């Protein structure tokens, strides 16, 4: 059986460089990721973490691959929900490319693909990120296209 995974594709009217910058700049991340603080220098082997506004750590991990502005792979474990933490590490791959929407369609935009896969067994973490990624990525797209976000809680 295939490992549990979540895949999401969004097309953004932007450039790969701007999408990369948005995903790796803490001030920008805070704007589209509900105030989350990312701490990382985005170099292979470096530690990575996401924290809430009040300082509690949400997720930790390390950068496995970083190829600006095309590819970022994060080894990722939840820290604040015991049942998710118990499932261990996952792997999140972000791919950024200038692509046609559909073969032969002609128009191009930045295609951002998020693939989030658990290293071991279990389905709770993938279920949780399946709810979160559409919000975060909808906001990222809005932020890059309009300067504002779409989803406000």
């Amino acid at each position, binding site marked *: 059986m295939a490992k549990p995974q979540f895949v*999401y*594709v*969004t*097309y*953004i*009217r932007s450039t790969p460089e701007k999408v990369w910058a948005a995903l790796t700049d803490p001030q920008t991340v805070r704007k589209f990721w509900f105030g989350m603080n990312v701490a990382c220098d985005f170099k292979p082997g470096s530690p990575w973490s996401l924290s809430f506004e009040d300082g509690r750590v949400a997720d930790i991990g390390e950068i496995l691959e970083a190829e600006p502005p095309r590819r970022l792979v994060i080894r990722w474990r939840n820290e604040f929900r015991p049942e998710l933490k118990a499932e261990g590490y996952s792997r999140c791959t972000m791919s950024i490319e200038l692509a046609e*929407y*559909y073969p*032969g*369609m*002609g*128009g191009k*935009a930045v295609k951002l693909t998020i693939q989030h896969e658990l290293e071991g067994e279990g389905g709770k973490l993938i279920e949780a990120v399946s709810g979160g990624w*559409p*919000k975060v990525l*909808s*906001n990222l*797209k*809005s932020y890059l*296209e*309009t300067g*504002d*976000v*779409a*989803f*406000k809680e």
Partner: protein
Amino acid sequence: MSKPVFVYVIYIAASPERVWEALTKADVSERFWFGYRVTADGKPGTRMTAIDPAGRQVHDDPIIESDPPRKLVYGWKSLYKDLPDERASRVTFLLEPLKDQTRLTVTHDDFDEGSRMFEMISKGWPAVLSSLKSFLETGRGLAATWGEEERRRAVES
């Protein structure tokens, strides 16, 4: 192996009424749906139709459920002759209001196992729904040159 189901959730800074209009009125759909004129504003039992940018009718499917601006369900069978000839599948749009925004969930299911059409729609919906979001938030959908080329070819032939 189980029957494939495609699910896509997208948050749009626009009211459900505006999202509904974009999904059901041809004059609006053609501005973001890569030139396709999609009509789906009738009651259950009427038809969902789609005309491609070259003027060919590519859909004539039954509207199964319609509850504006909350839920729309229609059958889905492409009339393009060069696509896999598979039985009709089903598309469900769920529009949920969140303050002045909409959470739109598109579920495309009722495929047979191993469906080739499923692979194609899985690539198509993210592009269409990304363009819908851009259109409603910025006034411009994502651009495609496909429509212009097809139209020119249709005129020349």
